[in-house]
């Protein structure tokens, strides 16, 4: 598989969304997408669709927003990020590796025997993974508990939970939503990767979520809605959140399942399957750097 470079520097730590910051993040996101496809292709299994839809959000979090120290993954005041949609593990692992939590070379061990990179994230195996995930629906209530612990201890870290949309069909998500609302956890941010596609088909056909923003508002949440592939919008939403008080905030990020790989986009078939060699080449061409495209 092609190895990602670790050469792109951490961008935007000054919190200014200059054109260069956005361009650098977009470049990083393409690199993560290529890595995701390579990881799934390399082992012949995994979940590319939901990884690619979440990539721009993960890039914005790990390379701009989150206060983290890769040399000290257990730093007490780090921001906490919980990937509730654990099947997006390839995108999480790629982000963590490029952020410096473990060597990027290790990404090729994904889903193999003796690997620290399990099929779904395992907090006891992978540096930087805050919580084990894979069974859907858990992250929000767990994030609420983390946010509550921060408040009890007077700590300033923020907790972020990235969920899929299909996942919102699970009742326990709304238990967590009520808990976060009751305890007014404005240090908790939920992000919904709203790609509209789940394993068996379209979310709207299987169990519709609309009106999704109204649902969250009715549960006592601030709601921001963005294009989850527009990095400027993602960064602005993440910047907006700390200014919203007394309630938790959900960012509903409208995304495209399989984003960036032409034949995967909006296809439930690409929820969990690996590309053929020809499809792999096509994906790499789709995800190539713009300069290369022009050349």
């Amino acid at each position: 598989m092609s190895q990602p470079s670790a050469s792109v520097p951490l961008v935007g730590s000054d919190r200014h969304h200059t054109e260069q910051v956005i361009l650098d993040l977009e470049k990083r996101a393409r690199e993560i997408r290529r890595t995701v496809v390579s990881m799934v292709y390399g082992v012949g299994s995994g979940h590319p669709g939901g990884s690619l839809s979440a990539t721009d959000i993960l890039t914005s979090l790990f390379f701009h927003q989150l206060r983290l120290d890769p040399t000290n993954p257990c730093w007490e005041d780090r921001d906490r990020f919980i990937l509730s949609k654990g099947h997006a593990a390839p995108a999480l692992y790629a982000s963590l590796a490029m952020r410096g939590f473990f060597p990027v070379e290790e990404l090729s061990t994904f889903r193999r025997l003796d690997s620290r990179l399990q099929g779904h994230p395992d907090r006891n195996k992978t540096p930087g993974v805050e919580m084990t995930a894979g069974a859907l629906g858990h992250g929000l209530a767990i994030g609420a508990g983390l946010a509550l612990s921060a408040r009890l201890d007077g700590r300033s870290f923020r907790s972020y939970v990235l969920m899929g949309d299909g996942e919102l069909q699970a009742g326990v998500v709304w238990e967590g939503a009520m808990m976060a609302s009751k305890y007014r956890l404005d240090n908790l941010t939920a992000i919904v990767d709203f790609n509209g596609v789940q394993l068996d088909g379209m979310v709207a056909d299987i169990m519709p979520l609309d009106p999704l923003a109204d649902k969250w508002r009715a549960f006592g949440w601030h709601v921001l809605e963005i294009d989850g592939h527009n990095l400027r919008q993602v960064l602005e939403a993440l910047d907006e959140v700390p200014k919203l008080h007394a309630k938790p905030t959900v960012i509903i990020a409208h995304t495209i399942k399989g984003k960036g790989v032409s034949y995967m986009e909006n296809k439930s078939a690409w929820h969990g399957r690996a590309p053929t060699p020809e499809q792999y080449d096509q994906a790499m061409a789709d995800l190539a750097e713009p300069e290369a495209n022009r050349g």
Partner: protein
Amino acid sequence: MAELQSVRVAYGQALAEYGAVNDRVVVLDADVSASTQSHLFGSKFPSRFFNVGIAEPGMVDMAVGLALGGKIPFVNTFAFLLAFRAAEQIRTCVAYSRVDVKLAAHYAGLSDSFDGPTHQSISDVAAMRGLPDLAVVIPADATEARLAVKAVAEYPGPVYLRLNRNEVPVLFDESHPFQIGKGVTLRDGGDVTLICTGMMVSRTLEAAEALRGMGIDARVLELHTIKPLDSELVIQAARETSCVVTTEEHSVIGGLGSAVAETLAEEFPVPVVRVGIRDRFAETGPYFDLLDRYGMAVADVVSAAKRAIGMKKEC
């Protein structure tokens, strides 16, 4: 008959007392704090008490988050709701994730007797015992419930603490040794070993006394920890008495009886007779009457002991 004391009140008081010496302890309940007695902690430490309503899976997940943030959460609700409604949370986010959540499972066995089989819990140990990395602890009386609070809080890992609703005979005083994973020999004897847990400890001691009158010397082991099982003590008893009876307020499938039988089948096969509920749901009624009706009378233990002795190899 021995003095009766409420197991749940002992637990609630001990939790409130321990909360004063360990400020990492937080307590969650799902709208049954007046039943579980977790309200005693709640009124003493309101900022560390979270009543989340009738939302058991969410409660376990929120406790996981609190534990990740450095707290020692005690989650409280009825045993059947924890072990079954929140089973996947416990499997994935507590046991597999090895997050240190303490699961206080109340009204276990038939002890919520008048509410009937919807509220009784006769299969929870089977479900919880099958999960790797989760300890299962069952106090026998109010004293052990009190001692268990500190032991469970300070145990390095998640624990399923199975608690009785009712006033049951007091067997032990505060000097009673209580260490998670360590069985206790309550009575010596060479003819048969009666291995008991929870409420059945008192009835098993009565049975041992009755057997004595029949010229049978029964050893009595209390295993308040079903997992990790004190297999050394069990194997030693099998070796020295050549037959074993298990007694528990639970289905004979998957609980203490299964744990003992599995261990002995592999390590030192001897006859094992299980006393418990014979794979059926019970009904509404007075607690002690239900125990008698569903196979957990003192007489049931006595006849199980005789049967086990009769099954010993003649050599």
